[in-house]
């Protein structure tokens, strides 16, 4: 079948999503149902975290880290206190380390439950969402029991935690784990292997590993592409080296490695691993010990800077802290995993293969040659790339040559109209004469050979 092309349509999504999963605006260019370009517009939730921090004391930063990601606040606290303790060279008691790991892993499960639940909701599965929220609520109850808050905990402090574990905590968590483990099987039955869900996620949005790394994608999104990378294993912080757990990666079980389904399934498997870590941590948790023991009264880290990465449920969460010796951070930068993950959206959602290819042969006129010598080839290449991507296309190859033509370019552009516009714009400058040839895939010739056409040459 040939490729049917219509007009480009610009579709606006957001910024106010009806169920407010997050406030994000997407400018989507589509041709029918095929997306040709997505431009994420972010910043609607920008809350000046870094500027605030410069005006707060180190202790006051912790509640802000909660609010940076209210789905996994424990992990955000964790990253910050790990960085601060490394900067100040504090060693916290074992009991505190265990409590922190327990909280972080519980929060990881809660966060993944939300991620998977609303994911299912967005592709049209309502029931799993309710199941997962029901179970997430149990984790939030455990947090409420511990520190009084459901979402914004302010629980981990530099050198300790805010409250000791309540009476009966260990039994409650064991109770939850015993309840939760069989539920994972249930989720798989109701959602993971559901035919409609597979149809909608397998082979969609394939993210190749090298692209993922170049875009700084991390965490379950990176592991979904088959890269075995987990900071808890590869650069262990806190006491993660004491636990025995696996790092699940996407294997293309249903579709292609690195598709939406793989990213989904990796999270599902990670919850099992978190349960494993939790059981070990609960078993080894030291019974006694003061959880405030190493808590300094006023935090004044020595002059210097630190870059510390931790594995949050979304991926690589890092803090860059610069201290000038005063009780307030001189500079505090948070490297958010979601920010980097979002930047790859355009790259993987584009239906690039659907775009026709064109061969451009160009010869420079006198003025153009002069300009080329002045600016240099690579900077021109950049300009052509910019031009193509602004029209929703991309450059496959660009070469300069001797002979009749000076430049050869193979370019992917959404359609003929766009190509004509591009070539007209270039020719109008008078610096370059451009000849355009439409390129066809071998498949089109195959297709052509199957059509029978009767033609009579003149005079026969």
């Amino acid at each position, binding site marked *: 079948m040939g490729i049917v092309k219509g007009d480009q349509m610009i579709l606006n999504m957001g910024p106010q999503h009806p169920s407010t999963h997050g406030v994000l605006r997407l400018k989507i260019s589509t041709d029918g149902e095929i997306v040709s370009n997505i431009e994420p517009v972010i910043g609607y939730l920008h809350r000046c975290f870094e500027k605030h921090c410069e005006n707060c004391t180190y202790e006051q930063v912790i509640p802000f880290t909660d609010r940076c990601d209210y789905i996994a606040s424990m992990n955000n606290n964790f990253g910050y206190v790990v960085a601060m303790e490394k900067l100040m060279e504090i060693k916290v008691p074992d009991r505190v380390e265990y409590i922190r790991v327990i909280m972080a892993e519980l929060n990881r499960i809660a966060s993944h439950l939300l991620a998977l639940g609303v994911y299912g909701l967005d592709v049209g599965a309502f029931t799993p969402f309710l199941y997962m929220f029901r179970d997430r609520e149990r984790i939030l109850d455990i947090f409420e029991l511990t520190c009084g808050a459901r979402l914004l905990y302010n629980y981990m402090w530099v050198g300790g935690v805010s409250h000791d574990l309540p009476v009966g905590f260990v039994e409650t968590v064991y109770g939850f784990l015993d309840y939760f483990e069989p539920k994972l099987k249930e989720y798989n039955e109701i959602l993971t292997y559901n035919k409609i869900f597979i149809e909608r996620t397998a082979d969609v949005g394939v993210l190749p590993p090298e692209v993922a790394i170049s875009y700084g994608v991390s965490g379950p999104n990176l592991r979904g592409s088959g890269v075995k990378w987990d900071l808890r294993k590869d650069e262990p912080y806190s006491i993660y080296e004491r636990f025995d757990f696996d790092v699940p990666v996407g294997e293309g079980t249903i579709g292609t490695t690195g598709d939406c389904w793989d990213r989904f399934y990796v999270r599902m498997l990670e919850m099992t691993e978190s349960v494993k870590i939790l059981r070990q941590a609960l078993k080894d948790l030291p019974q006694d010990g*003061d959880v405030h023991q190493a808590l300094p009264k006023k935090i004044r880290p020595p002059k210097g800077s630190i870059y510390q990465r931790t594995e949050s449920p979304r991926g690589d969460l890092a803090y860059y802290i610069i201290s000038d010796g005063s009780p307030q951070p001189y500079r505090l930068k948070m490297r958010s995993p979601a920010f980097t993950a979002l930047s790859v959206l355009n790259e993987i959602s584009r239906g690039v293969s659907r775009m026709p290819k064109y061969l451009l042969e160009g010869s420079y006129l006198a003025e153009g040659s002069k300009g080329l010598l002045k600016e240099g080839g690579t900077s021109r290449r950049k300009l052509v790339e910019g031009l193509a991507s602004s029209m929703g296309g991309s450059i496959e190859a660009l070469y300069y040559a001797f002979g009749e033509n000076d430049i050869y370019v193979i370019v992917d552009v959404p359609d003929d109209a766009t190509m004509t516009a591009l070539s007209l714009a270039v020719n109008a400058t008078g610096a370059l004469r451009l000849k355009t040839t439409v390129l066809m895939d071998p498949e089109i010739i195959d297709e052509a050979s199957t059509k029978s056409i009767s033609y009579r040459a003149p005079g026969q």
Partner: protein
Amino acid sequence: MTDNLEQLIKEAVEKALEGDMDAINNIEDRVTRSKAKAALVKAKREAAKEKPEVSSDESDSTQDSAKIKTSNENIAELIIQQFPEDINKDLSSEGHIQIHPKNWMAIAKYLRDDPACLFDSLQCITGVDLGEESDLEVRYNLHSMTHLHAIEVRITCSRNNAKVPSVESIWRIGDWFERETYDMYGIEFDGHRDLSRILLPEDWEGWPLRKDYDVQETYHGIVVPKVKEGWE
């Protein structure tokens, strides 16, 4: 307090540390008893402080950091050898290298592609204002997924003409990171295809994370709240 009482407290604390709390609880005088309890807490705290120094984890972690340090030093050495003119050796240390902006593009390419470096992932770009009267700085945290080593690259640029070559084409995430740094510090990344504000609105005035930043008073008729100084 007499020597006698001190001796009593000391003995009771020693017994309590061995697990016999009755030694303290059996002290008849309430004041002496509470003093003994306070001494016990203090003793426990000191014991906890001493403990980590002898534990085996501590020695492990120092070994680890030593290992990372040596690999970082080697990397820094390697780059200094390769680009002797572009590195400011005085300001570089084992953890980071300080380079001049001019050749940054070539160095970045080398860092990504050289088999000994292979820094395939740009972890973070942090802008820093070194002070109201001095320069701005851009810090790049690089990490190699192959060799598992990391390095920090620092580039200083002047406040009034803040320009640094863009590495967006080398690490794709550079695109957004550079836009973010531009947004907050007004550092221009030469060669970036679409250097525009990313978090703040297009028509926002000034560079918020610079130390000499003054908030604009109104934005489209909306009063902008002032940042409060020194919350305590």
